[in-house]
């Protein structure tokens, strides 16, 4: 899912062309006001309808969380966020998994992306295909495959010394099984984001310059390439965080209780308002983080352009 979002997020960094061609052609033909108002009607309608469609559900959800029918307005749902049982362990598990996923994605993809940039076109095809493969297998199909593998291991590994490892991989405090699945799910998007970030750099020249100054290749990558890749790495981290925090399919079917599963379970267990409050807060917080990130990355880009 969400295979192309990376490239779109990267366009945030470049100055919006909208400012350039906003009033341009229409204004040039004279009758500025007439031209503008004709265009803006259509655009305004589209934005209004879209705004209503996207904001009304969020608004009514917020209303639902603060409207306590008989008494009226109350912030109880938000106060309970800090006391409701099970939320913090679930959130902790999700954040831990997110951190693990991000680290593993970096470790696997950054060397690969550098190699792809320096290597032959065939290497690029192989890596691109490898990272696109998970898109063809829907998450639920991957889950079905994983549960089949787990069943096989359970049936066949019991007498062997591998059984302890197998059980460790399913430890509810840190399920390695989930970590592996999440990394697979994050790969397509992470590869596109990092690859697009790398494309903006002249990797070969940077590396050769560093190596001519006596740095080893590994050191050159860590001290020269990675700092230049910061924006793409941050984007990858945030999208992966959003993916892991919201992930429900794999975890719920394999029987783990991270954040999203806790929300759904709690909701059906009658803790309605709290779980809805938690879910809407998490959504808005993630959005704010991404917005701050995109404004920050544009500032940095502008600052660099001035130097």
């Amino acid at each position, binding site marked *: 899912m969400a295979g192309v979002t990376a490239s779109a997020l990267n366009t945030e960094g470049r100055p919006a062309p909208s400012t350039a061609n906003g009033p341009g052609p229409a204004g040039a033909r004279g009758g500025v006001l007439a031209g503008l108002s004709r265009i803006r009607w259509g655009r305004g309608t589209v934005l209004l309808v879209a705004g209503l469609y996207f904001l009304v559900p969020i608004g009514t959800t917020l209303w639902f969380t603060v409207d306590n029918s008989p008494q009226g307005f109350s912030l109880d749902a938000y106060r309970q966020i800090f006391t409701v049982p099970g939320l913090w362990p679930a959130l902790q598990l999700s954040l831990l998994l997110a951190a693990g996923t991000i680290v593993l994605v970096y470790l696997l993809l950054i060397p690969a992306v550098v190699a792809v940039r320096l290597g*032959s076109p065939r290497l690029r095809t192989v890596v691109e295909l490898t*990272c696109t*493969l998970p898109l063809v297998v829907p998450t639920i199909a991957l889950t079905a495959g994983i549960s089949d593998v787990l069943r096989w291991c359970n049936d066949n590994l019991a007498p062997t010394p591998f059984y302890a490892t197998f059980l460790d991989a399913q430890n509810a405090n840190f399920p390695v099984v989930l970590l592996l699945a999440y990394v697979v799910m994050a790969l397509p998007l992470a590869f596109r984001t990092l690859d697009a970030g790398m494309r903006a750099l002249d990797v070969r020249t940077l590396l050769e310059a560093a190596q001519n100054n006596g740095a080893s290749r590994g050191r050159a990558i860590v001290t020269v390439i990675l700092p230049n890749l910061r924006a793409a790495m941050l984007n990858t981290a945030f999208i992966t965080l959003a993916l892991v925090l919201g992930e429900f399919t794999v975890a719920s079917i394999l029987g783990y209780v991270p954040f999203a599963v806790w929300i759904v379970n709690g909701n059906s267990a009658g803790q309605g308002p709290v779980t809805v409050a938690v879910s809407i807060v998490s959504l808005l917080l993630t959005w704010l983080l*991404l*917005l701050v990130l995109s404004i920050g990355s544009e500032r940095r880009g502008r600052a660099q352009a001035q130097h």
Partner: protein
Amino acid sequence: MSTAPLSATPARRRPQRAAAGRFAVVPLLLFVAVAFGVPALAMAYGAFTTYNPGKPSQYTMGNLTASLHGGYLDALLGSVKLSALSALISVVAGLLVAQAVVTSRFAFLRKAVLSASGVLANFGGVPLAFAFMATLGNAGMLTTELHLDQHGWSLYSFNGLTLVYLYFLIPLMVLSVIPSLDGLRRQWREAAQNNGATGWQYWRHVALPVLTPSLLGGFVLLFGSAFAAYATAAAMVGATVPLITLQIATALSGNVDPNATNIALAMSLDMVVIATLVMVIYIPLQRRSARWLV
């Protein structure tokens, strides 16, 4: 996706450097082989075999046959229908919204819409399901205020689910089409205007033909995304629309019939076949649009 110009220049690498470069890819390939390849192969194998604890498994076509009959077939067709319809609507709506955002003078609007789209498209379906239940569910605010239930409205129907799916598909379309819209050159529009074309003629003869591959690519992407969606429908307790993902989840967690898992694996294989067909259409389209929109 254009190939990087650097890789086209004749490389003057020493052999060991090239080898070192290739080694950097090995961990990634190994990881995908284990974490993705093993479950995928297990799924394909399980789809064609029986499962009896303690006995060796046997080859059978029974699972696949079962997965394409009765309620399972209804679910598969329901998923395809829902995905196709919601993707179609989202392509049109997403294009309109993206065009409105791209041509807007407010840089902040662009940032807000892009980041919000990134969250909605990636965050998954749980908050989404809650938001719609609070708004348009049986006791939802709009439902009760506007007495929508008296007009036959139900969120848990096919139409209701379509409306919910648009909430993450339109943002996905906005994200995927904005780079293409940015790629439409201003000169093309000016050239069309200088030749006396109206706005409609410009869109009909210049912009849309250039955009067509990315619109089709977007449709395929959205279809795949809607087809694979599970959390939204699962979190909307009481939804009665048959979906293949719900059926697989039920069969996997049922524990009643040990062979149900293998039917779930067969249904997963059906999904993979459909998703693969969709991707096979997607890749060449992506290449074609890249030719114009560099």
